[in-house]
């Protein structure tokens, strides 16, 4: 396109874009420098600057005494299990809904898509009762089950949109060769679905990894507590020692950041898919 504005206008635009750039990158810098400081620097001495002494021991304090290693393990277990279950169920359902022929396909799809409009807040109290009856409160399953249930609609939306683009001939050939329905679905269609599965996984990962409300209501023991709630609790307990809390925040952000650094365009794509749900 033609660039026909005045140089001063262009400079102003650059300046504006750079200011906002700093506003967006500042949290990461702040987080990192804060995690290596001690209280005297955090409280007034040196709020913005790099730490005068890099106190790496904040990390070992958070890891051990702050129980971050435990919370991290819990977050990993919960997120991994939710991802596996959600993807498995959503893939199978999408295959059944789009490739198989039966009455009520459309209706079932609409029914599942209802879930996109329902905020999980609305189910808290009844879910608490149901999970209690199932005796899974304060176990990993107590989070995995509701997380999976609430993420299924989104995952189906992403996956089914993709299944549609795979030509039916793929399966025709497979079935003519005598391949059964399970083998066809899991060894022929599933491998072709990787991009959609990645998109869905990223979306589910961010939802589950950052979730706070259910994680605080359905869990009451440290053995199951996830990072978000665990760290939030540290703010009450370790009022006097902020450095390790900063370290805890960094540790909890690393998986998200690594994911983003490695595949920023996929992460962006999956969150766009999450918004354009209509």
């Amino acid at each position: 396109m033609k660039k026909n504005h005045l140089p001063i206008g262009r400079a102003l635009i650059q300046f504006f874009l750079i200011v906002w750039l700093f506003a967006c990158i500042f949290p990461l810098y702040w987080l990192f420098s804060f995690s290596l400081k001690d209280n005297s620097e955090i409280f007034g001495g040196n709020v913005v600057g790099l730490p005068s002494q890099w106190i790496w021991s904040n990390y070992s304090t958070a890891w051990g005494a702050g129980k971050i290693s435990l919370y991290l393990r819990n977050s990993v277990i919960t997120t991994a299990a939710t991802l596996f279950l959600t993807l498995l169920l959503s893939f199978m359902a999408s295959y059944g809904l789009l490739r198989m022929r039966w009455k009520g396909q459309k209706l079932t799809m609409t029914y599942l898509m209802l879930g996109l409009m329902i905020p999980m807040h609305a189910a808290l109290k009844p879910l608490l009762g149901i999970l209690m009856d199932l005796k899974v409160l304060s176990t990993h399953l107590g989070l995995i089950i509701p997380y999976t249930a609430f993420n299924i609609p989104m995952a189906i939306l992403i996956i089914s949109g993709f299944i549609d683009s795979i030509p039916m001939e793929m399966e025709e050939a497979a079935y003519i060769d005598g391949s059964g329905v399970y083998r066809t679905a899991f060894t022929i269609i599933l491998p072709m679905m990787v991009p959609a599965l990645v998109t869905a996984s990223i979306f589910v990962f961010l939802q589950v990894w950052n979730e706070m409300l259910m994680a605080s209501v359905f869990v009451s023991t440290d053995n199951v507590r996830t990072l978000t709630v665990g760290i939030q609790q540290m703010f009450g307990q370790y009022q006097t020692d902020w450095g390790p809390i900063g370290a805890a925040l960094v540790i909890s952000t690393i998986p998200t950041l690594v994911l983003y650094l490695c595949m920023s365009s996929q992460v962006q794509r999956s969150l766009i898919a999450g918004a354009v749900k209509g």
Partner: protein
Amino acid sequence: MRKVLSNKWHIMVFVLPTVLFFTFFVIIPIAMSAFYSTLNWTTKTKPTLEYFVGFKNYIDMFTAKGSSFPDAVRHSLLYAGASVFLQLPFSLLLALLLARGVKAESFYRNIYFIPVILSSVVVGQLWRKIYNNDYGLLNLFLRAIGAETPKGGWLANKGTRLWATFVPVLWQYVGYHMLLMYGALKSISPDILEAATVDGATGPIMAFRIQIPLIRPMLKVCLSFSLIGSFKLYDMVKILTDGNIGTEVPATTMYREMFKSHNFGTGSAMAMFIVAECLLFTVLLNIIFKDRDRERSR
């Protein structure tokens, strides 16, 4: 193949587990919430029809003395307004600037998106530090230029607490809206822009006459995300102020009613109100944007 793919047993194996799971853990709980919302259920009563009170909870939550729900709803509407009239235009401006082609376009885009993926704990704690009365960045800056700082701190002062709570959320999701709009802007055919340029359209005219009308469908997505998000707002408010008086939003008030006051009936009514609000706004947006969408062939 027809036989394989219309085999009832196969269909059941593939679809039924998901449908059951979803029904049992999403639909049934919502239905139960709807039922609970009509009961006088506290720690002293049980969730049975014996305590049926009809719509009393819905009326009470708005009219009962000391109920903070009307304020909470008002706050969420204010937030929705701020999101629509400040956050979205700002995101649109960023998207337009990036989409017209600047140096290191994708670098900017990637960085602008970072706040979106951070957890609310991180973002919330960062802003608590920024707002801190004694050593917060904001007050350090204000003192440096000799300006006054709000009494009691940004998050407690009557005049500033509500907006101080909203700013971090607005800030966090600018990158999200920017990305959605940027994507839509980039998918406009270059021919159209070329033709407009030949006709003499530049900067603002191009934006208002050509680009913005063409990304209307995406603006609808952004609007609905903003509005629905405003009723679901919870994490950040919880972290910043714990939804204390003057900063409460529907979800924090519901949480309090349910898990602090143990008024399960009224709490459920609030929960249902949030669901209804989300549905209502989705429907409204669909009506408003309907004519245009029909023209757009899919």
